[in-house]
């Protein structure tokens, strides 16, 4: 029972000193590991800023592969708030029943397909299609557009050979440029058109700002959702009793989603640039250096979570930070949660058991730490509940 396990590589460092150190392309990062420090620093946008050189708050840094500022992600208050307010209602659309019905249909179709197939490679043949199809709903564009995104493979910025792949980024950027031009010529009801028609400070958004929002929507919601879905399949494969429980107690699905998100922490960390000499965990940090908010470590902090390394499906108090905290908390969380809820309900209804055939783990190399975030590949066989 450990193929689906995600270890906590940060425990010792978190207990002993509270931070970790990672060298990343000669721009080192002090990783904050304790729940309290992570939340406090996420809240303190004056000392720990997001509005640095585009790409610098991402770990590994993307400064060498892009110039476009991601919006609202790489802005600080009060600028941040203006853009955030603009897009927030759009990102709440997953709460509408029509959206939920369509998502449900997509996910049931995906499950029916794998139930009637032999062995399935989950990352590419299940999670990526689910993520891509669901994104057509979020952007409000035709379902068929997902084929293009599926053809890009699992990593928009990463490839098997190198952690940061400029060519892959170019594919996404060129694609988004084209789509923006298309929306200018043929305005519709899609997110591109809505952004192009929006205003901040009494002026229209620039093309570059629209691009900044769209790039973020594609990049931020891809690997994260894919890992959340894939890890869930691995977990249920090894815990059929959990699937059974969710079948009998559907009212705990909401809690289960939050708990799986805590345990998986699909986004390991996010950086900030320090504006003044300061200290965290009695460790001096210099102005213009980088820290990171390590969500994955905070989520296993034993001073906040009882039995932190166990999945307690109906955990009642669960102040996890998988979707971040404070100003920049995840805009896509409503969408991601809806995908997870629908997926779990559908699995509970249709699937009896899942067998893992073979797998290759996806392990992030964080210098001092090695963290499993999911799988490069995982072959499984889904068995139907109703024969």
């Amino acid at each position, binding site marked *: 029972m450990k193929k689906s396990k995600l270890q906590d590589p940060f425990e010792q460092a978190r207990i002993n000193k509270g931070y970790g150190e990672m060298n990343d392309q000669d721009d080192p990062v002090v990783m904050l590991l304790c729940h*309290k420090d992570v*939340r*406090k620093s996420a*809240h303190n946008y004056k000392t720990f800023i997001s509005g640095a050189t585009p790409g610098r708050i991402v770990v590994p840094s993307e400064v060498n592969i892009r110039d476009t500022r991601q919006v609202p992600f790489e802005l600080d208050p009060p600028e941040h708030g203006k853009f955030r307010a603009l897009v927030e209602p759009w990102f*709440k659309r997953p709460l509408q029943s029509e959206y939920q019905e369509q998502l449900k249909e997509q996910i049931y179709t995906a499950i029916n397909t794998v139930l009637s197939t032999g062995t399935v490679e989950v990352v590419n043949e299940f999670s990526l299609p689910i993520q891509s199809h669901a994104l057509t709903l979020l952007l409000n564009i035709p379902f068929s557009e997902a084929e293009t995104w599926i053809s890009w493979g699992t990593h928009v910025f990463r490839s098997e050979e190198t952690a940061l792949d400029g060519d892959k980024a170019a594919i996404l950027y060129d694609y988004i440029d084209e789509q923006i031009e298309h929306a200018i010529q043929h305005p519709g009801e899609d997110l591109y058109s809505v952004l192009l028609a929006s205003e901040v400070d009494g002026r229209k958004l620039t093309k570059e700002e629209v691009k900044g929002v769209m790039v973020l929507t594609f990049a931020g919601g891809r690997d994260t959702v894919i890992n959340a879905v894939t890890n869930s399949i691995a977990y249920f494969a090894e815990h059929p009793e959990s699937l059974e429980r969710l079948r009998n107690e559907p009212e705990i699905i*909401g*809690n289960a*989603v*939050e708990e799986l998100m805590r345990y998986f922490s699909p986004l390991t960390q996010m950086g900030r640039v320090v504006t003044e000499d300061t200290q965290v965990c009695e460790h001096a940090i210099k102005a213009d250096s980088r820290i990171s908010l390590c969500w994955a470590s905070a989520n296993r902090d034993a001073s*906040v979570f009882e039995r932190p390394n166990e999945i307690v499906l109906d*955990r*009642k*108090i*669960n*102040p*996890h*930070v998988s*979707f971040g*905290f*404070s100003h920049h*908390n995840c805009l896509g*969380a*409503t969408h991601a*949660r809806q995908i997870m809820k629908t997926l779990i309900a559908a699995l509970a209804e249709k699937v009896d058991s899942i067998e893992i055939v073979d797998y290759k783990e996806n392990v992030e190399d964080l210098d001092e730490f090695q963290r499993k975030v999911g799988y490069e590949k995982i072959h499984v066989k889904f068995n139907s509940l109703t024969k």
Partner: protein
Amino acid sequence: MAKITFITSDNETHIVEGDSGSVMELAVNNGIQGIDGDCGGVCSCATCHVHVSPEDISKTGEASEIEKDMLELDDNADAYSRLGCQLAISDALDGIVLRVAK
């Protein structure tokens, strides 16, 4: 049955009734503006923040440690702040007035 008054940030007053679940759930089910309940009530999102009327604090009680840690990092929080998802509805809450923080 508890009758609960919500005053939203645009100063609208809504009186709703409930007999089970949490204040957050009651607000979401009644479409009270400013209470989203994103995390479903597990104390992770703070989108259920309310200010309890000073005279009703004896009915609701004070925030728990975990709740306080969360509210401490909310710029709108004060001594009367609570997370709606941590307030279980019972007859004891009948008549309270809550001001929605967002």
